């Protein structure tokens, strides 16, 4: 099933060839850096880099488009909320106040506020492509193996992998059940009110849960019969050894993080201030 939203797709790029551990570590370091720093220069470099990486991973828009739009919406809400709740946060941080538009009460629009919110936006945009890319370029089984390798119980990793394994099955069950219920006269179209629709949704959800429970029963028996959980450790068919590219990527991520944080905090705080002097 090609092009399914937010699912792993096999492609041959160096990013796909990286071990899941590397990608997970990179993703964590990257997000951590992105969250700590408010330094615009660092953020701009990170944004440029994440776009380059995103491009190199050959990720297609249809794989992530919906989610990206959702994140953008969330970002807008966040920016508006920041302005509503603390319109003078920029002034507080940067120490100056350059009023652009006079508005009633404390809602004067300042350049500092705009700059501050611009930084928030940058933070979102630097992390988002990396998260999305991590999801669509990492084979779930390899991801499970990676989680296990960094010390997380393999039960957790396998739970994730097996959930992914059953997503297509549950989706097709859902369609079947929905059709059968529609034939019985339960209209799912937009005509009904939200509450009505929720109530009708339950008529799909319950059968879906019951038939999924049957599946869980079978699969847990099958897993047990083949020795799942026998030992504290297990090996992974799809596990990948770290290659030179992996080490280089990891080294780059670590160096980049240290450098970014050093640049960020060199002047004493998390913010880059273009307004001083």
């Amino acid at each position, binding site marked *: 099933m090609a092009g399914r939203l937010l699912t792993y797709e096999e492609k041959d790029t160096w990013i796909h060839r990286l071990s899941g551990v590397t990608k997970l570590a990179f993703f964590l370091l990257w997000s951590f850096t992105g969250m700590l720093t408010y330094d615009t220069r660092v953020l701009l470099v990170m944004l440029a880099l994440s776009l380059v990486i995103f491009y190199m991973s050959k990720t297609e828009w249809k794989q992530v488009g919906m989610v990206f739009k959702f994140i953008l919406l969330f970002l807008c809400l966040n920016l508006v909320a920041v302005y509503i709740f603390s319109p003078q946060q920029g002034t507080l941080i940067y120490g100056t106040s350059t009023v652009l538009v006079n508005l009633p009460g404390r809602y004067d629009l300042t350049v500092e506020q705009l700059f501050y919110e611009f930084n928030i936006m940058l933070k979102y945009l630097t992390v988002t492509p990396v998260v999305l890319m991590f999801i669509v370029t990492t*084979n779930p089984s390899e991801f499970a193996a990676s989680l296990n390798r960094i010390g997380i119980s393999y039960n957790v990793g396998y739970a994730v992998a097996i959930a992914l394994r059953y997503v297509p099955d549950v989706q097709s069950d859902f369609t079947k059940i929905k059709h*059968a219920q529609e*034939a019985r006269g339960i209209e799912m179209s937009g005509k009904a009110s939200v509450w009505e629709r929720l109530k009708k949704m339950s008529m799909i959800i319950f*059968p879906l849960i019951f038939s999924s429970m049957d599946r869980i029963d*079978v699969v847990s*028996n099958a897993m047990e019969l*083949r020795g799942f959980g026998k030992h504290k450790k*297990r090996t992974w068919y799809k596990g990948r050894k770290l290659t030179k590219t992996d080490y280089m990527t990891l080294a780059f991520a670590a160096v980049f993080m240290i450098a970014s944080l050093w640049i960020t905090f060199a002047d004493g705080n998390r913010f880059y201030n273009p307004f001083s002097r």
Partner: protein
Amino acid sequence: MTPIIEFKNYTFKYRSQTEPTLRDIDLSIYPGEKVLIVGPSGSGKSTLAHCINGMVPFSFPGEHTGSLSVNGLDPAKTGIFGMSKTVGTVLQDTDGQFIGLTVAEDVAFALENDCVPQEKMFSLVQEVAQTVDIGKLLDHAPTELSGGQKQRVSMAGVLVDDVDILLFDEPLANLDPATGKRAIDLIDRIHREQKKTVVIIEHRLEDVLYRDVDRIVVIGDGRVVADRTPDELLCSDVLEREGIREPLYVTALKHAGCRVQAGDHPAHIETMRLEPYAGKVREWYQKVSPPPAREEKDTALEVLDLDFSYISGNPVLSNIDFKIHKGEMLAIVGKNGAGKSTLSNLICGFINPDRGKILLNDEDIASKSIKERGEVIGLVMQNPNQMISKPMIFDEVALGLVVRGVPEEEVKERVYETLKICGLYPFRNWPVSALSFGQKKRVTIASILVMNPQVLILDEPTAGQDYRHYTEIMEFLKELNEKYGITILMITHDMHLMLEYTDRAIVIADGQLVADDTPASVLTDERIAKKAYLKKTSLYDLAVRCGIPDASGFAERFIHYERQVRSHGGQTADL
């Protein structure tokens, strides 16, 4: 030789039940044997399998007396993990037991759990994949495989552990006849080549007997009722008594008044010595009356030159053309993925055809919504759990009426009436969860019937049912058809079902309609059977080998005779 599996005076009772499920089992299976265990649902045959692989008592707790030894181990002490080194179990749900995200990972699953190093896994998986012929599929995801391929993957996943005993729990349950035949062939090959002990639990006796088995053990009501060679068993009346379907040719021989002898090797129709019986069979064929010709009735549903594809240029169905008459009971058959379900989805309006028309009572229904079609064409899904959305039986059956705004009094009246028809009236105030699988199936049929549909479409109405439940469901449908004149359309790959209960079969293979004829002629036509992954009925072989040229006519007469026997409830029918 010491047995590899030995039950001695073994009795087992589930913790949740008051009566033992297995009683005084004495059974020995020797290394390298291939044993078939048959029995109706609820006879305890699955429990027996679970005792061997350690699921009993670890996953399904209970108490046992007597002793059981499997390869020198006591499963109740060794545990499921320990037993999995000796006993490889292939479950009946080919879909549900597929654990990995790809074929290779699924095959390697047991190795991973055993901490086998990666390089060794690669070579082992490769090797075992060759054995079951899935070498080219290693990178495929489960959704890309057919039922038969999935089953091969399950077998590989078990063989990779180098077990001594292979345990198959209803391996044919979800397979079409031709795929089932190949599965039996593969099991046989593995048995011969790898010298494993093979235990098969199955109620489709005739299909398993496609290849030799050493012994058949019949379980009835928790006890071993018979433990004989196939030849001996087929000559006795044990199967009939225990409600297990015997091979059709054996039934036919019995109808013809033959006393089958074990010495003539009745286990395989192809090689059975038929000389002593051929005369009687021919005589019987001359004596019994052919079925009366069907009278043509008005058309209920007509499909006109229908085309459908999900992706353009890749047709799922093309040029489908057929008529269904009022009051008919007919089957749509074909292998998994041939387009049978797509056809029913088109009729119900879940998807729309690219070209062509569907007429109901000579009226085009293209403009009708799913809901509107649902009032005249009722669809019953294969798995009742996928349909039932209310906890109480009454509410579930009433649902279709309630959402259509039918007044409360009328709802009550119609629901009660429907429940009476379906034999569920005594349970009207019960929760659905208290019902058996077969009863749930009835509830789903009732919930559709209550809307008075003219046509009823059933997807695999008898899948996974043993002979008794199969007969129960099918007799019920027949009654609906005969008494209430409801047109019934069944999507199935059960050949017995189409032979015994339908007047006509529409055969679909690779998106094309390849036959529209009586079941008897479809199942005696090698070309069609091959195309549609069906299996020629053994009645055909019997007829040919007894020197009856009209094999299809023979099959037709046999079915007609059987139906008469069934409706008279006795042993012999009026000739």
